[in-house]
């Protein structure tokens, strides 16, 4: 108990004191320097903690992982491309790769499509804030909690027995099912059931951003089109969609990256069984469970390579924005 109180004191007072102390102390040191050198040296003191964290926790480890991907299981001997040959020759990893592609395509399409639809629909009702909150809530909870929520939603009982899962109860109303959603391999149903959890969680994110973009479109423009006889579909296709395209693009790339990195849902619900593995989980599995650091690093590098084009897009977009500033 006493140990916990000490931890609490560090957490609440020690950490902020150290950080504020750092800046005050370095300012003291800088003041001791000749005036013309102060301006040159000061910025480095201000960004040094951030740069140190970035180098230690992101830059160095990423480079090191690249090196490890050419080493063996225990990272002692150089094995060339062996880990990559394993990756592209192993049916398990290839299945995980296929599923990650499914996640990227269907989670992105689902999140962006539903987010856009909901943003446009709630724009026309008086209870818009309430409706948005309802859609948005899942974004605040963890993937672990979401996985458990949907474990109960997808609960399966054999046909003839009373269904306790909401999804099977609902499809039962129209005379379908029941299905064991997260274990049924036919038509990749299990993968789609898991991907839908991701869609459920992230649609609110797309909705909020697209809704802000939508409200930036002038009402006069929309009204003018309607007065000229355009129907709602023509207004959407001719005005809303073209004006929102850059925003849709931003949201889309964020979701693609989220889909590639998503690991928790699969880890909690199926742990990669029933043909539902994804590369983000495969990496953790190879590292944490198998402890083959060569394989794990190769999987991580494949994931990184898949993300690099989006990194380049981000940088290009940032440069364009800076040019406008």
């Amino acid at each position: 108990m006493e140990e916990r109180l000490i931890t609490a004191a560090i957490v609440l007072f020690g950490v902020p004191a150290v950080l504020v102390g750092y800046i005050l102390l370095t300012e003291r040191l800088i003041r001791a320097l000749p005036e013309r050198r102060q301006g040159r040296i000061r910025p480095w003191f201000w960004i040094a903690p951030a740069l140190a964290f970035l180098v230690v926790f992101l830059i160095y480890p990423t480079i090191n992982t690249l090196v490890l991907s050419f080493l063996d299981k225990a990272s002692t001997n150089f094995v060339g491309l062996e880990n990559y040959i394993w990756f592209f020759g192993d049916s398990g990893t290839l299945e995980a790769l296929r599923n990650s592609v499914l996640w990227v395509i269907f989670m992105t399409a689902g999140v962006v499509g539903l987010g856009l639809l909901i943003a446009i629909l709630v724009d026309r009702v008086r209870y818009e804030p309430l409706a948005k909150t309802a859609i948005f809530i899942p974004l605040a909870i963890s993937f672990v909690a979401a996985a458990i929520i949907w474990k109960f939603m997808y609960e399966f009982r054999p046909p003839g027995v009373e269904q306790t899962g909401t999804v099977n109860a609902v499809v039962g109303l129209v005379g379908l099912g029941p299905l064991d959603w997260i274990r049924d391999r036919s038509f990749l149903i299990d993968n789609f059931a898991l991907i839908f959890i991701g869609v459920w969680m992230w649609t609110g994110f797309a909705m909020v951003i697209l809704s802000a973009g939508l409200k930036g479109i002038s009402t006069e423009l929309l009204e003018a089109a309607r007065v000229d006889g355009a129907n709602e579909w023509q207004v959407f296709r001719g005005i809303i969609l073209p004006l929102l395209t850059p925003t849709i693009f931003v949201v889309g790339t964020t979701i693609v990256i989220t889909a590639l990195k998503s690991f928790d849902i699969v880890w909690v619900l199926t742990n990669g069984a029933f043909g539902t593995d994804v590369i983000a989980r495969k990496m953790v599995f190879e590292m944490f469970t198998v402890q083959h650091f060569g394989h794990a690093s190769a999987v991580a590098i494949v994931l990184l390579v898949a993300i690099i084009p989006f990194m380049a897009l981000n940088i290009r977009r940032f440069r364009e924005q800076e040019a406008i500033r």
Partner: protein
Amino acid sequence: MTTLNAQAAPVVADPRVIDAPARAAVGRRRPGGRLVLHVIVIGLMLVWLVPTVGLLINSFRPASDVAASGWWTSIIPPWDFTFANYEHVLAQNNLGDAFINSLFITIPSTVIPVMVAAFAGYAFAWMDFPYKNAIFVAIVGLLVIPLQSTLIPVLRLLAGAGISGEFLALWLAHTGYGLPFAIYLLRNYMGGLPREVFESASIDGAGPATAFFRLALPMSVPVIASLAIFQFLFVWNDLLVALIYIGPTRSENLPMTVVVANLVSSLGGETHFLTAAAFLTMALPLAVFLALQRYFVRGITGGAVKG
């Protein structure tokens, strides 16, 4: 929520063009259309709310009921609700301790990156130094690095320093992972503060530290609030970082997410306890989110939030 990098903020709504009555009038010409609209919107709200509400109701039902019938059957009286699931997971599965651990992990993992990013963001916005733009572009690139590509080397570093398994390991790692977005957001916001304020402070003899603590920081409260909420939710909800860097050997330091994720496989047939466990992990983030929704939404809709 590993990539809440809503960089390249979409145009934030100009309040002058929001004309709610005019927008609401759109569908009013066809009453049938309005009805369809309401049915679809309310239907979508239900699809999004029912899973969470169903879990909450199940968490208050006796084990035998959860196994025998759906949550909806319990809405009709006679009610038979109980706290037994909560009592069980708090007493038997150490979820009470895990809750405290989550707090101990999350608070410094939020405070440190926000403050470190504020120092750096201020320097990037208001100081001049060589390679400033190149370094900042590199930070924008780091926004999307997947955690998976850092896990093994960082675990080895932490183990080498003798702190893997400790809270400190997670504070440092979460700071590293949260910094790119934090610096990006704060630099953009601080860069938009009025130049005159800092110039007149400088003329009055205030040094950079004074200008930072007395002007830049207080003026950046809205964006700091958004950022703190993000980072808080991200760390509180994190499974991967805690799973790897705390590891199975120091189970007394595990946060709720890892403990609950482990329950999914270890509980076997007693899955009804999961309902209460899941709701306990959700309670704090939901409260934070509902209380501070405005800041949360603002943080998402832009790195360049104005006002």
